[in-house]
């Protein structure tokens, strides 16, 4: 997730000022999202083999779209009069980005990260298909011996745990949002 945030936000920061690169970035990342997860994991067995690396790579790709798009939308959506004032005060482009654009776009960026997280928690379960780690294994094991004793329970436990994790993450983001968004722009 952290990797996806770094790449996604970085990509957004690099491209938000120009329409062509930013739409290119959004299109590419959304193309990743359209690839069915089982297919992508399968394809990645070639270069990355089975296991954690494969799953990690796939999850990063999936997480990119909401983060990148929200970063671009957020940064470009900062009120132009505010940007103008900042430039008029002699803020350099980098300073303007860090002290003005990012803080103002932060709620939007964060909500992109939040959506991404929710999404890939679900996809991560399928990672068990290519011997990835995680709760997906419970589900697949349970499904593999479906009908056997406790197999249904195993599936339900895996699924339930994933839902709970997703909810916990969501809660964490609410807290992060409260802590990191300036009181001056909080709704």
């Amino acid at each position, binding site marked *: 997730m952290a990797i996806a945030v770094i790449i996604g936000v970085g990509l957004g920061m690099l491209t938000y000022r120009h329409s062509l690169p930013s739409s290119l970035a959004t299109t590419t990342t959304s193309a990743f999202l359209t690839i069915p997860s089982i297919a992508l994991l399968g394809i990645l067995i070639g270069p990355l083999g089975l296991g954690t690396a494969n799953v990690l790579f796939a999850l990063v790709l999936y997480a990119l779209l909401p983060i990148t798009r929200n970063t671009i939308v957020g940064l470009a959506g900062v009120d132009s009069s505010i940007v103008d004032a*900042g430039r008029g*005060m002699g*803020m350099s482009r980098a300073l303007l980005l860090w002290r003005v654009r990012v803080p103002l776009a932060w709620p939007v960026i964060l909500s992109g990260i939040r959506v991404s997280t929710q999404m890939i928690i679900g996809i991560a379960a399928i990672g068990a298909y290519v011997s990835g780690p995680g709760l997906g294994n419970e589900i697949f094991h349970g499904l593999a011996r479906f009908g056997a004793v406790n197999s249904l329970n195993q599936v339900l436990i895996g699924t339930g745990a994933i839902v709970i994790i997703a909810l916990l993450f969501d809660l964490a983001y609410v807290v992060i949002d409260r802590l990191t968004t300036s009181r001056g722009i909080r709704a």
Partner: protein
Amino acid sequence: MPDTVLNSRSPSDPTPPDSATSLAPGAAPARTGGATIQLLDVTKRYPGQVAPAVDHITLEIAAGEIVVLVGPSGCGKTTTMKMMNRLIEPTSGQILIGGTDVLKLDADEHRRNVGYVIQQTGLFPHMRIAENIGLVPRMLGWSKRKTADRVEELLEVIGLPPGDYARRYPRELSGGEQQRVGVARALAADPPVMLMDEPFGATDPITRDRLQNEFLRLQRELGKTIVFVTHDFAEALKMGDRIAVLGPHSIIEQYDTPKAILAAPANDYVSSFIGSGGQLKRLGLMRLRDAELRPVPAHKHFPQITIEASLHDALDLMLESGQSKVLVAADESGEGEVFGAIRLDDLMAAIADEPAGDPSDDPTAKLDPSAGS
């Protein structure tokens, strides 16, 4: 031009060291006077457009003056102003501030030494008031202590008690208060030059009037060189030591004192901009204080007007009371000292006699801000 107020400090100079901390409490915030601004044959041409946005403008603005660029929307007045702090780069020509060619300076550096106030305040909503005001000083490398002192001082100057306001966010302030903070932020690093783009345009008429008066009072202490952009001719008359009436492509139709422009518009374009009632507006610019009064009449049953009022106010009182003579007194109450009287034909004479169109008029004879309001 009054060279005494001309400050030759280069706009790229760092701010005077530790001036804020050494300042006695309650002292006037003025330290840096203004600097002259010269535009020499400046043109801005946008690619793909036949006509230039700004066509060979040459304009000299004396140190310590408020010069208002007034013209209809789209005439290039804002473009002209934005070239002075290089938010827009001129296609050709030279811009000198305090004798320094600003096009040769680092643009960001340069902008930190030029105050900039815009209509929508441009305050950063995610920063507290104190942070907003202290931003430029911090960029210029002032210490935290010195910046904090300066912020406190400025909040006092604009009439917002620091204890109450420093830690608030912009949205917790009224529009008028926000605009005051905008002015304070532009003044923070004590720049010799301030650019103001319709700074009071977004406020209601009553607030605007108050902000204008406050600003004129402040400017009398500060003596900055101020370029003020507006499309409102009444505001131009009130704020300007000099007014540049701009036509399309930022061509200067007339550049003179408000009185001179009203008395002798250079052409039809300027006349149309003045609109109707030009002579009434002239009366609004003349103060009773400067008028020659008749001796106090024997019986004092005439209406009274304060000596701070304008001749326009006197005329208004005459029309209202049906008297052709009013008494000029220290105040309107009827108890203060009566200085003299003024008659309807004196007002006519004032309009007829006033020398028109002399650009070497003493620019320091700033009109009273409350005149004509």
